[in-house]
């Protein structure tokens, strides 16, 4: 049995009615594969892994994997994840969100999760569009790009997930893409084991909704775009406008749940 087949048998749900919802060429499956490989490489107990997902294409990911999975409401995944982690700090809580989830409707939850440094790994699958609802402009859609709700090109400036998370005080901030699967695996593992709040942005192409409206002729073009337009942050020179990938913030502050347990113990010692 090949390694991939073993992983499929071990980590995907047998009782779930496949096929999955992802379109041909979608980058989300690659991120899902990376997630499974990372959990396997880190030898995490399946019973202790919790996937908390939002709403949208990325949100459907939760149903396929054989962990504890919670498919929440649009934008609210981090709030559930915060409750779960605080209630049981032993769990490895991974929050899967799209760009609409994390940056738009759940933007407030993202910055506050970063501020309070809750020990959750936030995975932001950024496809720069609302895919499931049919290709509307998102807060990550680049200025000038087409979508169903920006038919003349988006006038608004997009959010930079990495800069936002850094500024809000996330412990660990990284970015990779669906094209750079090996780098994604490494960063995913780091993000999962890092204490406190970790944010990993994965740029993930949406050929069906974003590609068609923005002059990408086929799926391969979209992956080539990611290859050409990204650069490792260490190698990025002054004036290089390509999107940097890699680790952007690596702090070592204890997570809120650890500090809370300490507080509780000190209060009980007083009594």
């Amino acid at each position, binding site marked *: 049995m090949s390694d991939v087949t073993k992983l499929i048998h071990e980590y995907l*749900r047998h*009782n*779930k*009615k496949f096929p999955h919802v992802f379109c041909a060429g979608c980058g989300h499956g690659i991120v899902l594969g990376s997630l499974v490989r990372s959990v396997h490489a880190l030898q995490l107990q*399946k*019973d*202790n892994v*919790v996937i*908390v997902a939002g709403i949208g294409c990325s949100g459907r990911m*939760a*149903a396929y994997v*054989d*962990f*504890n*999975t*919670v*498919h*929440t*409401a649009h934008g*609210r995944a*981090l*709030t*559930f*994840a*915060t*409750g*779960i982690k*605080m*209630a*049981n700090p*032993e*769990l490895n809580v991974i929050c899967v969100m799209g760009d609409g989830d994390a940056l738009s409707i759940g933007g*407030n*939850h993202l910055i*506050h999760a970063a501020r309070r440094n809750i020990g959750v790994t936030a995975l932001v699958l950024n496809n720069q569009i609302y895919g499931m609802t049919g290709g509307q402009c998102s807060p990550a859609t680049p200025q000038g790009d087409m979508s169903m709700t920006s038919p003349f090109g988006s006038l608004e400036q997009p959010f930079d997930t990495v800069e936002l998370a850094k500024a809000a005080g996330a412990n660990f901030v990284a970015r990779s893409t669906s094209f750079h699967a090996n780098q994604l695996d490494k960063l995913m593992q780091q993000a999962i084991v890092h204490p406190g709040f970790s944010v990993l942005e994965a740029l993930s192409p949406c050929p069906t909704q974003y590609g068609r409206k923005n002059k990408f002729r086929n799926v391969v073009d979209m992956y080539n775009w990611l290859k050409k337009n990204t650069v490792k942050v260490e190698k990025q020179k002054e004036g290089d406008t390509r999107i940097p990938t890699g680790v952007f913030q690596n702090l070592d502050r204890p997570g809120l749940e650890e500090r*809370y347990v300490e*507080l*509780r113990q000190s*209060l*009980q010692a007083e*009594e």
Partner: protein
Amino acid sequence: MAHRRRRKRKEIFAQGNEAVAQGALLAGCTFYAGYPITPSTEIMEIMAQRLPRTEDGVFLQMEDEIASMGAAIGASLTGRKAMTATSGPGFSLKQELIGYACMVEAPMVIVNVMRGGPSTGLPTSPAQGDVQMARWGTHGDHPIIVLSASTVPECLEMTVVAFNMAEKYRTPVILLIDEVTAHTREKISIPFEDELEVLSRMQPAVPPEWFKPYAEAARGVPAMAAIGQGYRCHVTGLTHDQMGYPTSRPDEVNEFMTRLFRKIDNYYHDVLIVDEYQLEDAEYAVVAYGCVARSAHHAVDQARARGHKVGLLTLKTLFPFARPAVEKLCMQCEHILVPEMNMGQISREVKRVNNGRTRIRTLNRVDGQIITPSEILKAIL
């Protein structure tokens, strides 16, 4: 015979909000997530003091009301008894995830200390304007339990009941109190732990490979596995099948939705709590709840002293609506008065049950003032 030491309950002079917090701790609440809002904030402040001092208590101040609901549901999924408290505008924000809690059948308690509305309204004045919102606030057809309390001791008692019902029926339970009840100070005696009935959700009795998280169960309430217990279930706000996976098959959707309603509808004898006062021979009845029930109680006494046969039905369960108790009054009494601090949110339920049998009168007040006993007395006589 062994000498039994007489126990004396601890008595405190407390306001309704304190009684709610006390009741929650007695009922086994170990998780609170909230956002400050008048007039419910004292509940949050007490939980912030008390929960970190308990063995595994967690208190969280979240960034907004929606996040508080999310955190509480998340905690509930890990097996905790969770609570959040809010008032008017915050209750509007909580509606989104109240629907989620109904859908995934997550037990939890939401306290809403009603203040004048709509919008920012009268933040420090009492009202009862959120009654129908508590029933129908979240989108989609859903069952829910809404309780109320009219005195400080009742705040404690009904909070324990709210937790028990949430656990027993795997549903969010809303406790509606009003600013007056929340801020009135009264003597309450704290019951001993062994004096209280405290219920917890049913645990799975089968190994993970046989477990169906949303199986059709005898009572309509499936067992609930906690995250991390080894059952690795899928929880989703999409309509789901017995395994918890999304489905849109009409037969599975229908089975799920009917079970969701059946689990509460079949247990009215347990869920519907009312207090009957002087109703045996009453020719005139008052139907009230919350602080108005207190005024009505006084008014009934005064009317009785003057020789009028008046009685009071206090609704402690607002929804599901106490149809049997109200129906009995509709057949027995010549008049029914429904005083409330809104434009008629419960009186419309009484009229619906009455179905033209007797005369229903309303007494409404929406100026941020409570309805006094003399106003009720005047309406009766």
